[in-house]
């Protein structure tokens, strides 16, 4: 059973990665058709760097992802703490609102925001509303529920006495909040922020409805590219991106693993100390 599960898992991973291998190989292909190998070349990469469009758009995507996930994290963490202290009825009302973008299809969210911005544009007599700000607003909006969903459980797992204990030990409420509560929910905040960042970086459907000519993100541009004849420099971009993400992820897990190891060591040391005390006592 176990071996079956293992082979199955690796088969599924293979399934997930085959298209990526195809794209990576295509990025070194001299021809434009990924299905026909016409020899090895780095031409696609040089073309990618010579092209002045794709890389700035990648930067645009990163800008939007960083800003939107940061703002959403701050807003969402604050909101979770507020919601945690609410009466159940009010909280469930807030949760309903939170659930709207989660269960709404992306396309509906995109369409509704597009209509809102167009409406706001006519109201404010502004002709070009769509652009950086609208993209940012849209990304924050769809990121917020993910932050709430990952912070709220951490808050309910937290021991409610902890904050009071901190205050008994002389913390001001503010200190107690920043030193204890925030510290306790940090893993949730971080995983929510990462989730928001990834979602924002890869979002196409919602961005597609709210982008303007002056600020285009990479996924939208890639969509525009897929409507044109194939240009292999896209594959080169993909391969580079893939490498960067892979590297970042590997480094992050390694750091995480190290931190964890340190923590267990500390815990063991701590426990050891306590045991000794007990013995002495």
């Amino acid at each position, binding site marked *: 059973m176990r071996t079956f599960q293992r082979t199955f898992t690796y088969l*599924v991973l293979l399934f997930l990665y085959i298209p990526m291998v195809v794209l990576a190989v295509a990025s070194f292909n001299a021809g434009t058709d990924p299905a026909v190998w016409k020899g090895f070349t780095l031409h696609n990469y040089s073309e990618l760097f010579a092209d002045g469009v794709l890389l700035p758009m990648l930067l645009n995507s990163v800008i939007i992802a960083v800003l939107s996930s940061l703002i959403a994290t701050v807003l969402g963490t604050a*909101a979770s703490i507020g919601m945690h202290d609410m009466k159940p009825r009010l909280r469930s009302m807030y949760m309903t609102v939170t659930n709207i973008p989660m*269960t709404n299809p992306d396309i509906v969210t995109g369409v*509704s925001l597009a209509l809102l911005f167009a409406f706001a544009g006519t109201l404010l007599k502004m002709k070009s509303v769509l652009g950086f700000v609208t993209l940012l607003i849209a990304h924050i909006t769809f990121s917020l529920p993910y932050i709430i969903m990952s912070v709220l459980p951490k808050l309910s797992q937290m021991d409610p006495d902890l904050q009071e204990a901190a205050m008994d030990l002389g913390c001001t409420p*503010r200190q107690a909040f920043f030193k204890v509560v925030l510290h306790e929910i940090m893993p949730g905040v971080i995983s929510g922020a990462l989730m928001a960042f*990834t979602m924002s970086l890869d979002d196409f459907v919602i961005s597609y409805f709210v982008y303007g000519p002056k600020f285009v993100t990479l996924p939208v541009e890639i969509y525009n590219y897929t409507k044109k004849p194939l240009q292999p420099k896209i594959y080169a971009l993909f391969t580079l991106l893939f490498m960067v993400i892979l590297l970042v992820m590997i480094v992050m897990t390694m750091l995480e693993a190290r931190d964890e190891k340190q923590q267990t060591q500390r815990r063991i040391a701590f426990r050891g100390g306590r045991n000794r005390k007990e013995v002495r006592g």
Partner: protein
Amino acid sequence: MIHTKRLATPYIVWMVLFTVVPLGIVFYYAFTDSITGQFTLENIIRIQSYMPIFIKSIWLALISTLVCLIIGYPVAYYIAQCPPSRQRLLYLLVMLPMCISFLLRTMAWVSLLDDTGIINRLIQAMGMKPLPLIRNNGAVILGMVYNYLPYMILPLYSVILKIDSRLIEAAQDLGCNSPQVFTKVIFPLSMPGVISGFTMVFVPAVSTFYISQKLGSSGTTLIGDVIESQFKAAYNPNLGAALSLILMVLVFICIGITRRVSGTEEVAMP
């Protein structure tokens, strides 16, 4: 104490402004005429001619979600049983594809499955007849499963990880065999993950407009395609809004039914 409740105010203002109000505008558009701007039920009435498309979209999305569940469950279970370092690696490998443009990954499938694509070239090189791999429902389902599988695995994994192993041992002690342990203990306990995975796969799958355009035939027009065309090609936001409204309601109903059937209201996050 700090008045923490006030901390949620900016959030709720934001959400009302950017999710509730826009839905109100969708509602408004759905009930007005595209030319005169007056109240009309015509858009909603016109929708009945698109019912086959709704059915088709929901059907394909349901199948893909089920396939995702069947494939994703063993994987999530296996990952959750691994030692922590291996777990982290596998988790990463599952999550990594989510960071990369699904448009490009779908394009890669096109070049794999095309009549003149990689697989068919290999088949022909082996002296067999090429297979019709692309432009059918199967290809669309494949595309959906491929794109949304991680969204199924991750919540399942995080729920299975939290299952107390003592419960399983207790069940075994009380005389359950392995299938019974699974059906009576593990699966019911992982229900929140199943529901969350279901939502996270079904919702984007039912509303997709790219996968069907690339992998489907000229006959696999899904509801997402129609909505997109109303906003991007044919200028008729009113019909598009009406379609979005119906789609939204249908999705809510589908999710409601699953929560009802599974008997959980709780939802897990990856």
